[in-house]
């Protein structure tokens, strides 16, 4: 749906109206059609500069940039210095570059999960084989004994005519639910994005807690086992987990007793309760929309204890102001990239520092060079541009959640987000992807930016991953703000390119080996940054405020 020619003139309108029009000729094609001087500004994004940022941020000295650790704080200080050096304005608390965040972190000390039947002896499930638990993030302790009710996926989605909770009384009960959501191929049966949203623990907990549950037992499925195995979950459990603290409080869901059952653990639970069903049957039925809820007739006792700690971290935020006199100067387009990574973890080949060069030093590097590109434009943009390097992404998009709830600009001033968190592009690409942009008018801006660089705008290469809701842009979409995650696509790519990308992903993603590489060609990374720059610039320049499309899944709806 490209509409290339007429838009160039429309884009000029704000300049003409606000009296800040430039004498420089604006051609309809190429970057200068988006804003005067954009071609030079984009061309000024150099691979060396991108590489240098990644080199610093992914150095072992930064120890994997875990929130609350000195390595993250150094990264934050670095980013603040860079933004200051470029001449941006601090947009954080009290005139600083930092939006202070408090997280509560937990690490499990001890947990037990017992199944008791009336008159029978209690059966204890085995930790890390049958189940994993966390502790309450308010008191440290989960303690519940309650009857258990199986409710399939535990999803209520009226627009898909789906209600797992119809006619079930959950008050005071422990809900036994499959993790995730079905993923169908037809529009009426959980397309990828609704599947990811309805399948998210956060969304389900809101629904279940509204019904008064006393706890939740999550059940691992074979579909999820393919993405992240229970064994991987168990081996990662030592890292602990975190949540946001606001006014000294964590969200109610963080105090709700919960545990995750492995697939054998689910069968063990069913057997101990004396039920004839097994996970395979139940899962198949749930996938076929044939599930029927039932009470297990057993009570479960869950006890879990965690040590808690308070973690102080920050988002780093800088603002590039809009042109004076612009009618939309009070609005801001945000660029986000997460500054945090996994920190120090289990050694792999003798290396315990998870440097996160591609996740997401690369995204931070791009955002920094995009900011510099904005400062090189001969005129300020029509909308302000907010550069936010956020914390706590790896812990569940915590920093971006805070950013959206506490925008450093006017309350309704955040109009769009271009998130940069897609790994390091490792081949010279011809196609770019703007995940989630199809939910909003951002698709047009993505199209303009791609065309200006003679790139194609391709589709999501792996829609089943629902990547549109798997990074910080989701925090914006949830709040009804148009948002996108940018990445490179495989259109026009050779088999060699695909193989290189797959190999890089396999050896780097969430691995200790995700280092900065001196001999890596950072040209593709700079190329992606040029696209991201022009994309956000197009959104900042357009006359109308970016908006969700009327039929977007993220349009605010009653009951969601």
């Amino acid at each position, binding site marked *: 749906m490209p509409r290339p020619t007429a838009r160039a003139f429309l884009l000029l309108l704000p300049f003409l109206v606000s009296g800040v029009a430039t004498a420089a000729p604006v051609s309809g094609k190429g970057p200068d059609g988006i804003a005067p001087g954009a071609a030079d500004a984009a061309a*000024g994004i150099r691979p060396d500069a991108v590489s240098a*940022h990644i080199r*610093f941020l992914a150095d072992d*000295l930064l120890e994997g940039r875990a929130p609350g650790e000195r390595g993250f704080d*150094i990264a934050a200080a*670095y980013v603040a210095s860079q933004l200051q*050096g470029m*001449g941006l304005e601090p947009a954080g608390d009290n005139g600083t570059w930092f939006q202070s965040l408090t997280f509560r972190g937990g690490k499990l000390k001890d947990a037990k999960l017992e199944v008791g039947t009336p008159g029978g002896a209690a059966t204890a499930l085995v930790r890390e084989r049958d189940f994993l638990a966390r502790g309450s993030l308010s008191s440290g302790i989960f303690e519940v004994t309650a009857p258990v009710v199986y409710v399939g996926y535990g999803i209520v989605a009226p627009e898909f005519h789906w209600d797992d909770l119809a006619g079930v009384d959950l008050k005071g009960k422990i809900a036994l639910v499959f993790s995730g959501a079905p993923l169908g191929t037809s529009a009426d049966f959980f397309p990828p994005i609704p599947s990811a949203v309805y399948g998210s623990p956060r969304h389900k907990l809101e629904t279940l807690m509204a019904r008064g549950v006393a706890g939740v037992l999550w059940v691992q499925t074979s579909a999820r086992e393919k993405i992240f195995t229970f064994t991987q979950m168990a081996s990662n459990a030592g890292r602990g987990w975190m949540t946001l603290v606001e006014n000294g409080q964590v969200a109610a869901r963080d105090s709700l007793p919960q545990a995750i059952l492995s697939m054998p653990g689910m069968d063990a639970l069913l057997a101990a309760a004396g039920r004839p069903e097994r996970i395979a049957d139940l899962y198949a039925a749930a996938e076929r929309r044939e599930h029927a809820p039932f009470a297990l007739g057993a009570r479960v006792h869950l006890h879990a204890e965690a040590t808690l700690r308070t973690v102080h971290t920050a988002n780093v935020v800088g603002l590039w102001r809009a042109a004076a006199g612009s009618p939309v100067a009070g609005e801001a387009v945000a660029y986000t990239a997460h500054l945090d990574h996994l920190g120090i973890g289990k050694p792999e080949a003798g290396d315990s520092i998870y440097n996160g060069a591609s996740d997401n030093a690369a995204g931070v590097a791009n955002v920094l060079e995009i900011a510099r590109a904005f400062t*090189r434009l001969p005129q300020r943009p029509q909308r302000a541009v907010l550069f936010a390097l956020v914390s706590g992404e790896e812990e569940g998009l915590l920093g971006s959640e805070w950013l959206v709830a506490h925008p450093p600009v006017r309350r309704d001033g955040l109009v769009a987000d271009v998130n940069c968190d897609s790994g390091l592009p490792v081949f010279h690409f011809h196609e770019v992807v703007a995940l989630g942009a199809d939910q909003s008018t951002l698709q047009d801006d993505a199209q303009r930016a791609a065309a200006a660089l003679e790139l194609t705008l391709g589709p999501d290469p792996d829609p089943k991953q629902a990547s549109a809701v798997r990074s910080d842009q989701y925090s914006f979409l949830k709040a009804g703000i148009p948002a996108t995650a940018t990445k490179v696509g495989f259109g026009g790519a050779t088999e060699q390119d695909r193989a290189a990308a797959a190999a890089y992903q396999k050896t780097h993603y969430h691995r200790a080996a995700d280092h900065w590489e001196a001999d890596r060609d950072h040209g593709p990374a700079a190329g992606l940054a040029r696209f991201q720059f022009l994309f956000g610039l197009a959104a900042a320049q357009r006359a109308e405020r970016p908006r969700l499309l009327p039929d977007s899944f993220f349009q605010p709806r009653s009951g969601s």
Partner: protein
Amino acid sequence: MLVSPTPMRFALLPVCLTLACATSATRPTDAVDANGFTDSAKSAAVGIRPEAIAGHIRFLADDLLAGRDPGTHGYDVAARYVASELQAVGVQPAGENGTYFQKVPFVRATPAIGSLEVTGGTGAPVSFVRGENLVVFTDLDKGVIDVSGDLVFAGHGIAVPEYGYDDFAQVDVKDKVVVILAGAPRSERPDFFPSLASAVYGQSERVASDLTRRGARAIIWVWPPAKEALTPFTRLASHYGFDAMRLEDRPPLAPGLMISSDAFDALLKQSGRTETVADLVAASASGKPKGFEMRLKARVRKESKIRHITSENVVGLLPGDPASPTGKEMIVYGAHLDHMGIGKPVDGDNIYNGASDDAAGVASLLETAQAFTRLGHPPKRGILFVFVTAEERGLLGSEYFARHPTVSLKDVVADIDVDGAYPVHPLKDVVALGTDESSLGGDVARAAAALGLKVSPDPEPEENYFVRSDNFNFVKKGIPAAQTFNGLAGLTPEQVTAERAFWRKRYHQPQDNFEPDRDWEPFAQLTRFNFLLGVSIAQAPARPTWNANSWFRRFPEPARPGEPD
């Protein structure tokens, strides 16, 4: 004259930031002004922005870097920061093995116990208390020292034939504990320890190495009354709580201590002598130094914890124009990346951040590097940026670089050292130490004139900072050097008072923090001066030279026995 720093930034060519790209982009008219600067050089200078400098200082002086102490995480983070910045602007690695880094091996020691006992004589025995009348230099050679010997006094402990001066004419220091006056005689005459020569001959490591070679068992320095007036002994003593360092390849030195003038006066009495410290200083100053057996026995004991560490110099090169006959030559910009680390708390703060000393100099170099990339063409000489470690421990990183250069030192034609510069008032004048000794004085005048700045003389000639800074390690190799900082011209008396108070509060104190509200334009202006000074030197057809009558023409000196070259 360049007056308006900010509006030009958009006029810069944004695409051609690297020299490789810029070589083909010649400006159609690049007029040269009366001071020899092209329009592109002046516009590159104008592009040096205060906020860019502030950004660097903010990072380097952050508490997270814990005062950039060599061998610590904080220093290493600073070194990585500088390397990334150099890479980002297109400065090539010029350290070891194709990296930006030069590994410097050090010995580092933490002081533990230390004492001095003096027995014998006819007068009342003097008791020595650390921090009051005694400083025990941290031993870097053995770790455990217990030496005794007869005490002799040997003037300043130096012999300089060209001035007819010999402290060893009357005493033999072999196997003795030697008491000497710190420093060297000084006069206004060219034929007897002129100021610079006095500072060089009086340097403690030079004197200690000589006395060690002559067989001294230990050296007791006396902090003379003239120095006491500048820096009280108790203040001096407070600096010795920090670890000491030496280069790994420095030959061993006789163990050292320092005592106050008062303590030495008391020792003279204990030994039954009639002279005072003032008499002995006067005798040396007259060219007829005294030397005598004190008929006392001294025992020096000390212990320290010694370890071996590595810290890195960071080195980057913007190559000169290969088409230029001087393209292989280089000028060096230097600043020190280290500061003092963590130490004694003052007002609840124990991190010695060193914002002005020398995060500011590092920031200035980084923006100078960026300005050179904006010239639009490679300079006629290469520009080498050397960020050294362990300046605060005795100019060690620069000494190592000068002795083990990662580039050909014979191609280095000048050194510009940026240390101690931190203007807090609008900049009206600059000081360029050492440049009245060489042709660099002309370059200084041109760069200053282009910016409408005055050139002021050294405000504290008695301190001889020029031979007490990193640049001296280049001077010793025969390379003309400049140390640049802001002067005090045009300031009201109140501003001068405020400036002095500011320094007292901050110099080598934890209060030397980044100040977010400071106006960094004066420092940007000083950086523009540093940049144009380098442009002037780099573009001149002739290589810089020492003045015909300069005292520094004696360098490079041949290596003396027992010293590494």
